[in-house]
């Protein structure tokens, strides 16, 4: 544990995100989602710890020294730290059973360029040609390298921003109270859960062989929060006309975005050949895609109209 002083006086942190150009894709390790800066940092801290560390022990020496001199408390501290280490080991071993941490890391391997391009895609998906996710040795490429890959960063940030903007909107209308924030968040989460369960049930009933995982589905369903935020902000600035205009635009964009994305996942064979959808089996899948895409604008309106007066 470095003293807090060395961290503040330490070397300026090296940029932790190097943007790897796509042409160097083959050289980058596909299984390493995040850049490894550990060696650079430890060198920086080791060099700095000598001079700046001297300042601290003298100031805090006396109370700490008196505390540590007592052998009983020494033993107690050692025991406590060993307990903590054991507990941490236990949690680390078992966390993978409940929350797929390694799988989640894939969804957060984003960088600024990806976020910018994805937000542009969410607001204007009409000119984008290629919606396929690139694969590399059987695993989908991290979102950092492919703008079509789903991520959880944007939905998570958009959800939190939505709750805050809802609080802002309620505040400007003198309807705010702190528990309303929790109510908004809970309500949006409940609708999201309901959507996910309904879609999973429909996918099971229609027996679609798809590689659409639950987390992917949560990511796709979370993209509508971006449009909702835009609508509410415009509604705050320009009143109901601005709200309806922006919300209408975002609804259309999300509709097209969802159809083009889900078409590749659910209607894989038909979409690959580009033939118009025919046959009972494909028809059901088409209906499901349309239903999911149509539910997005409805939910976007339902979750925001009471915030704009």
């Amino acid at each position: 544990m470095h003293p807090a002083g060395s961290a503040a006086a330490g070397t300026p942190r090296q940029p932790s995100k190097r943007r790897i150009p796509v042409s160097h894709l083959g050289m980058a390790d596909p299984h390493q989602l995040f850049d490894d800066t550990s060696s650079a940092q430890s060198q920086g801290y080791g060099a700095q710890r000598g001079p700046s560390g001297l300042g601290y022990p003298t100031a805090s020496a006396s109370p700490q020294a008196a505390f540590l001199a007592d052998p009983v408390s020494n033993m107690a501290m050692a025991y406590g730290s060993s307990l903590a280490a054991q507990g941490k080991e236990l949690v680390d071993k078992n966390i993978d059973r409940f929350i797929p941490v390694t799988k989640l890391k894939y969804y957060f391997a984003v960088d600024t360029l990806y976020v910018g391009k994805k937000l542009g895609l969410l607001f204007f998906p009409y000119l984008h040609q290629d919606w396929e996710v690139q694969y590399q040795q059987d695993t989908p490429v991290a979102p950092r390298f492919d703008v079509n890959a789903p991520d959880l960063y944007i939905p998570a940030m958009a959800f939190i921003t939505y709750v805050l903007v809802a609080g802002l909107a309620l505040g400007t209308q003198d309807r705010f109270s702190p528990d309303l924030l929790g109510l908004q968040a809970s309500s949006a989460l409940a609708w999201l859960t309901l959507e996910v369960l309904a879609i999973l049930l429909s996918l099971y009933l229609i027996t679609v062989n798809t590689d659409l995982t639950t987390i992917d589905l949560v990511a796709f369903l979370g993209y509508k929060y971006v449009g909702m935020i835009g609508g509410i902000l415009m509604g705050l600035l320009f009143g109901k006309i601005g709200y309806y205009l922006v919300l209408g635009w975002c609804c259309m964009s999300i509709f097209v975005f969802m159809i083009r994305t889900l078409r590749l996942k659910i209607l894989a064979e038909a979409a690959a050949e580009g033939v118009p959808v025919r046959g009972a089996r494909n028809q059901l899948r088409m209906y499901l895609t349309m239903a999911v895409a149509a539910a997005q604008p409805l939910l976007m309106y339902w979750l925001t109209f009471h915030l704009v007066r």
Partner: protein
Amino acid sequence: MAFTLYSLLQAALLCVNAIAVLHEERFLKNNCTVGWGTDQGIGGFGEEPGIKSQLMNLIRSVRTVMRVPLIIVNSIVIVLLLLFG
């Protein structure tokens, strides 16, 4: 707008209860639906089973799996609602 996670839990519990109390003879018989007791293998391997048989499978598995946990959860919820309203 009072649609919260708690009401979702309540709705889910009520739905599972509804699935558990379905009357076998009336709704899950051979003549009106695909097959409560029919041999599922007849459906054909390599072909998707179809919505009705999927639904039957789902309902049957929910009933089998959730029978005992439902008893426990229902008792807890009844006691809590009686105590705390």
